[in-house]
């Protein structure tokens, strides 16, 4: 077997073998089924949850919060990051502000956000947007600043016009970092979205997790966990495809 295909095979087998081990441990009563229901149990609950439409509707709630919140934070974050990368005065102005605000755990401001925006969708959007905003600002800025000086020289030597300088040199040069910012942002948006749904929602996967714990419906809790995991996995996969599409010039 070639090394590449062996690797792929192992990647496929690893999760399956762990699930199998889990199943065996529950059936042999090594693991307490009240806390760790057998995977076969979870699968049958998953099926019920999917058939009833609860799976789709809750996943959709969480997904749309993540997408709307990420766009609300990500677009201004990217623009500010570009401006900070290009202009030293913009950077001098915003650097200390960001250095002070970035370390605050975003979840710690959720009570304040609920106080301001109430329990509706906007509290979730805002929390996610704030988290994503910082990640995109920081990543975009470093992307612009690490563009090799020789490219700036070439642009100047050929007297490039400002607009072409941004679109042909700075933006594509910073794009790899911008896209890693997007990847980090998706991860953070899922964390913040699910966490916000614990307290301030009547739908979503975070709500499902929290609510099933309250109802001691641990099977459903696991179903929601699996759904969160799959959601994150699919989004990461999608981003990797986007990466390949947008960065064909990167040696892989």
């Amino acid at each position, binding site marked *: 077997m070639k090394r590449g295909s062996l690797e792929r095979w192992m990647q496929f087998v690893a999760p399956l073998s762990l699930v199998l081990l889990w199943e065996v441990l529950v059936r042999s009563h090594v693991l307490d089924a009240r806390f760790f229901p057998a995977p076969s149990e979870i699968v049958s609950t998953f099926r019920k949850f999917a058939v009833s439409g609860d799976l789709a509707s809750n996943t959709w709630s969480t997904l749309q919060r993540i997408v709307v919140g990420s766009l609300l934070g990500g677009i201004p974050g990217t623009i500010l990051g570009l401006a900070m990368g290009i202009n030293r005065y913009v950077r001098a102005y915003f650097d200390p502000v960001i250095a002070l605000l970035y370390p605050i755990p975003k979840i710690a401001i959720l009570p304040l956000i609920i106080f301001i925006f109430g329990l509706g969708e906007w509290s979730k959007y805002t929390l996610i947007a704030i988290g994503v905003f910082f990640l995109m600002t920081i990543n975009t800025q470093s992307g612009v600043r690490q563009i090799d000086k020789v490219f700036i*020289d*070439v642009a100047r030597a050929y007297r490039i016009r400002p607009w072409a300088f941004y679109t*042909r040199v700075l933006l594509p040069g910073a794009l790899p970092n911008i896209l890693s910012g997007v990847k980090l942002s998706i991860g953070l948006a899922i964390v913040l979205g699910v966490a916000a749904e614990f307290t301030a929602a009547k739908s979503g996967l975070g709500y499902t997790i929290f609510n099933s714990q309250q109802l001691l419906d641990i099977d459903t809790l696991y179903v929601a966990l699996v759904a969160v995991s799959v959601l994150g996995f699919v989004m990461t996969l999608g981003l990797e495809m986007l990466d390949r599409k947008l960065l064909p010039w990167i040696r892989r």
Partner: protein
Amino acid sequence: MIDAPERAARPAIRIDHLTKRYDSGLLAIDDVSLEVAAGEFLAVVGPSGCGKSTLMRILAGLESATSGTTEILAAPAAKNVLPAATVFQEYSLFPWMRVAENVAFGFESLDVPKDEVKARVDEILKLVGLEKFHNAYPHELSGGMKQRAAVARGFVVDAPVMFMDEPFGALDEQTRVNLVGELGALWERTKKTVVFITHGIEEAVTLADRVVVMSKNPGTFKAVITIDLPRPRDAIKIRADKAFGEYVVQIWDLLR
């Protein structure tokens, strides 16, 4: 060696009492003057840190002089032409642009019709042997091919003056000699005014009409040597020429 600034009959570039002192106090260039004739190939050699790259950056408008002036006097043939094009060291191709886009980059600031740009890019790529690599990304090219593309990017805009900053510095010896030969042929065809910065003495003698030898601390012109070798020159055969060897030795002696 040089008492008065060298005068050229039909100057394309004039360097007049140029001095560059960095904020650190380092005197990179100390009061140098020179005229480069239209159509002349001028090579500048010198040890690392002698200010030869700084000289080119000032000429290309990438850095400012502390005092003195540099002027490009050669008028572009048309209004859609840059006064000067610059070829940089290796790694100056934009990794995110395909070869053809990279080569066409010099047209970004000029209002040249799209199909004319395409025709000229096609022509120059054929001339440097990259016609099959239009759509390749730089990372798919060898070092020599990258520098052929970089040279093509400089020549394609047809500016009367070319600045080249150690364009072959990072290449292996064999590729380097080949590219020197190709550049010589390209220059014979176009007769542009070239300022060619290099640390390769043999490539300077092979290509140049005159070689400026710089010394460092402070950076000054130690000598300007006229290379009186027949053209066209063959980058390999010229090595067997007695006069070639004497020029090389003369320059080595000056750098000691």
